[in-house]
């Protein structure tokens, strides 16, 4: 997995330290710490992992291992409006792939990528637990149900 080289600001370092401290710098809480960090930064660049490593005294190789194991964690920044298409069984059989294709075409992105203006990113996920609404698309925290390929353009328009 490639990573973008960034430099943290002092307040970023302070924030990471605060998050770690809120879990008593307990190495057992690594996943919770990473969740909070990703919530704050939107993603988990190498530099964030290094600070977490120092605070929790967990080798940075281990942290990278955890991040690459769980698909929820990402090392590439998500867009301001992250678009996720559910590819769970129910959504899949009701045409999620065609919906995903339409998002790909409209945004000019592959899964895992972010638009150059940082506005949208595209990802697929497994079952959000709303199978009755299949196929389901999420943009940020908002859920769209029974999405057809024709709806894609209108959904994106809401965020223009």
């Amino acid at each position: 997995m490639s990573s973008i080289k960034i430099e943290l600001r002092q307040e970023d370092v302070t924030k990471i330290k605060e998050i770690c401290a809120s879990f008593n710098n307990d190495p057992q809480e690594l996943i919770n710490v990473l969740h909070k960090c990703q919530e704050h930064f939107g993603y988990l660049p190498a530099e964030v992992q290094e600070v977490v490593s120092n605070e929790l005294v967990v080798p940075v190789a281990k942290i990278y291992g955890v991040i690459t194991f769980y698909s929820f964690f990402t090392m590439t920044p998500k867009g301001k409006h992250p678009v996720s298409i559910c590819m769970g069984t129910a959504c899949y059989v009701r045409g999620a792939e065609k919906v995903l294709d339409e998002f790909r075409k409209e945004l000019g992105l592959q899964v895992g990528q972010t638009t150059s203006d940082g506005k949208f990113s595209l990802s697929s996920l497994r079952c959000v637990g709303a199978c009755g609404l299949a196929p389901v698309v999420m943009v940020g925290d908002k859920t769209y149900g029974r999405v057809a390929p024709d709806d894609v353009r209108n959904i994106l328009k809401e965020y223009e």
Partner: protein
Amino acid sequence: METVKLTIDNKVVEVPKGTTVNKAARQLGIEIPTLCYMELHDLNIENKPAGCRICVVEVQGRRNLAPSCVTKCEENMVVKTHTTRVLNARRMVMEFILSDHPKDCLICAKSGNCELQSMAHQLGIREIPGQEIASISTYRKDTSPSIIRDLDKCIMCRRCEMMCNTVQTVGALSAVNRGFMAAVAPAFEQNLEYSTCTYCGQCVAVCPTGALTEVDHTPDVLRTLADPTKTVIVQTAPAVRAALGELFGMEPGTLVTGKMVTALRALGFDYVFDTDFAADLTIMEEGTELLDRLNRHLKGDKTARLPILTSCCPGWVNFFEEYFPDLKDVPSTAKSPQQMFGAIAKTYFAEKIKVDRKDLVVVSIMPCLAKKYECQREEFSTDNNRDVDFSISTRELASFIKQANIDLNNLDDGEFDDPLGESTGAGVIFGNTGGVIEAAVRTAYELHTGKKLERPDFTELRGLEGVREATIDFNGIPLKIGIAHGLGNARKLLDDVRSGKSQYHAIEVMACPGGCIGGGGQPLHHGNSDIIKARAAAIYAEDKSKPIRKSHENPFIIKLYEEFLGKPNSEKAHHLLHTHYFDKKKKIVVKQ
């Protein structure tokens, strides 16, 4: 102790409660095959990720086959280790592993010594179904100064990860990614060179396949030996002679000192010398430094840093530069024997034989992979000419001897050349955990007390326990000594030094479990710690057989000081035989 009785392959066995099925089977002489499980009993090291699934067995009454490495014995359990179902399962697991493994066994560095190859043979695998449609996952090859990672050959046994994290606490390697992309790698899948790796080589020592191997320098050595303008000299570390024979079919613990010397001469080295000579020299410098710090401390000098830490082990030096840079003024400044040898060879000896240092090539034979990195450190070069040009491992030397069709078994015993080949028993024991400090005590005791030691053996400093301590009476002063082998054990002692709790005057650290005899460049032990014990015994036997057993009595060391260095810790000795350490901890960069 509570015990349970069970039946394995129709034989009854009684074992302590909590024993796993594979260990109970071993008690009956049944070796259940495995690829990931590994135990070094005497060193308290065990790897059981239950990952490979080769060790499955049938347990009566259970629906699924059970991995014997993690299945605990129960009262009246009935286990079968080789039913048709078990053999078919093992075969299928093996076929899956092999379907994602390169088939270049003929030219693989591990060929003939590979546990995967042996297992394929043992299970009688003759074809790999589906391989014509399956694609093999490929990874970027990573070559560091000491170790090559070729993860195409990794089978995810995770022994290396266990060594790196649990035993050594180095934390350079972790399992990363999932599925076909899964691998054991440093953070961000960077090269090992940019990780916290100390090059201790314990990952290489336990790797069952060719995924982790050493950088082979034998072609470089062969090239210099063929160059008529070069004078090529060789130095051999103490632990090599106690293990080299294993690669020629000899029993573990067979000493091959004389045969090794003859083989090296036959390979074409102009002078065959001994690192043990430099080990004696190390004792003169390090022992003097210890006494100096001790005497200053006793006089109330607060600047005298105690405990003094030994500095012979390059994996250990890399470790404290990475993890304890704040303590970098605590270890002895004495160079390692390998580097002391190089420094003396390229000055004192080069002058003696009137050869320019650029035409003098120093090769070292080491049980170690970190030595490859050590000899490449910038501070150990003069005008871009290294003090030690190439370092090759015990395994590489064996391969070199075989390439030259020399049969080590049938060689006469040779003698090391003078003047850098003469050593004492104190130099020999450098190969064992506790050996460096025992050698230092032999000399420091006599220099400090002015009394002659009745008996040079300090058995209280010996053994295989991870952390040991002993108190030696120095004429009324109780000298407190700590010993650690394995970097995880060293970390415990270092944490105490950092927090000011350490009560020791001197601490010896060796990075590898067992010391150099268990080094990353030694013949592979394949999880048998009896081999390491046999090597340790051989080292002490060689010490015992030496007429001189204290470094300061080595006549060639005495002569070296008279002719060249003056006295221990003199300005010249400092210039040639001492070094300094660096802060290698990665810093968090903050944007201003």
